[in-house]
């Protein structure tokens, strides 16, 4: 952890809101993108990111400094994003009386098979997103943290509150799923 970061945390814990503001500035983008990777739209991600920092500020005295600050913050963010997704999913289910809502919900559920055999960035992106939408929540979390946010397996384990063995199992299963469903040119 950078020296100045330690000092900001120390000051923020003592109630210095400007110091906390600096932490926010340092991590606001990372948290926005992390949440986006779970909820899939920036509008919600923007609101949830604010929630995350409020929560972090309220719980700052519980940050013990044993892990990195980013790990601690990521954990709050992942939990918030997953809760939001579960809640949102429930609402959509309840809303299925209206055929429009149901159609909207399934609109982005394109079958993977229809994707052309191409390496075009957009296509690969779609394929990855389609795969990640189909693997379990834990598998997706492990992949997102490890690959999109460059966390080490140990950090992922801490964020997900599980062992490194469990993280590797999640990664392994996600990769096995992608092996069967990702179409990569030349593969």
């Amino acid at each position, binding site marked *: 952890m950078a020296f100045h970061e330690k000092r900001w945390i120390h000051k923020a814990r*003592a*109630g210095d*809101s*400007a110091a*906390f*503001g*600096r932490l*926010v*500035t340092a991590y*606001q983008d990372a948290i*926005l*993108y992390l949440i*986006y*990777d779970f909820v899939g739209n*920036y*509008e919600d991600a*923007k609101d949830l*990111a*604010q929630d995350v*920092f*409020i*929560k972090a*500020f*309220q*719980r700052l005295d519980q940050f013990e400094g044993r892990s990195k600050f980013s790990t601690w913050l990521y954990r*709050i963010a992942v*939990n918030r994003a997953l*809760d939001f997704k*579960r*809640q949102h999913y429930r609402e959509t289910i309840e809303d299925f009386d209206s055929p429009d809502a149901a159609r909207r919900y399934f609109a982005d559920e394109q079958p993977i098979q229809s994707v052309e055999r191409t390496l075009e*960035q957009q296509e*690969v*992106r779609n394929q*990855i997103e389609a795969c990640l939408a189909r693997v*379990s929540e*834990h*598998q997706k979390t492990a*992949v997102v943290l490890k*690959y*999109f946010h460059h966390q080490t*397996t140990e950090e992922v384990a801490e964020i*997900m*509150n*599980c*062992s490194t*063995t*469990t993280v*590797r*199992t*999640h*990664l*392994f*299963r996600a*990769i096995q799923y*992608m*092996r069967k469903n*990702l179409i*990569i040119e030349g*593969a």
Partner: protein
Amino acid sequence: MEAKCPKTIRIIELLEENLSRHERKALETHIEQCETCRSFLEDFNQIDQVLTHHQRPKAPDHLITEYHQTMNRRFMPASRQAGRSRIRSFLLYPPPAMRFIQATLVLFIGVSIGWILFHKSSAGSQQHEAVVQITPYKALQIQTFFHESEIWLLDMMNLPQNGDLDIQDWKMTYDEAEQLLRKINIIREINDSVSDRRLQHYINGLEILLLEMINGKNEDHSGIVRQIRQTIIDLDMLFRVDMLKKRLPTAARQV
């Protein structure tokens, strides 16, 4: 059906460079001889590349600008409004020692108002119901309670060593249920002065669920645990969406 090899999963560790030199050598020798592992490694190398270079769609510029501005306004006390902001932040996030004094003050004011109202309006009326305006401080207390309960519940769910966890597998010990019950009594005390009926409804529901779980010790209670968790999420939502937006004082809304 594709052949399985128990060593395939270790290839992840190989690419993490997590293995000792000896383990590494042994695994590499195995891969040379094992068709299953070899084919996995080939595919994994490619998927690893694809994932590493994955780029999420860019956020619209105006959204990012707006986001940064909001975050600045909210968390960064600008020098020109530093004084006001510091007072606000002091009121909303007081240091521990001040919290006690603040709480005492709020309690004192609350009791005074209650006392005055009681004696003014209904001398002798048994059905008197004090309507106390919810203070930002109380709002914050209630909100913090929900946030904490949520995170606390998430912390509590232990992942099994090898495998995925479904909602059905969530575990809750009796000790934890009792802890939560105690927390609920705290929130009930806060709410008693607020008299929010829907909040009351949820709190009662939560209590019934917890008691059901504690009393039925030998039964499978995964269903109850699921309901408990959902109730807490619902409570959080109810509070955030409804109370925060419509009924709480402005100061609390900015929390």
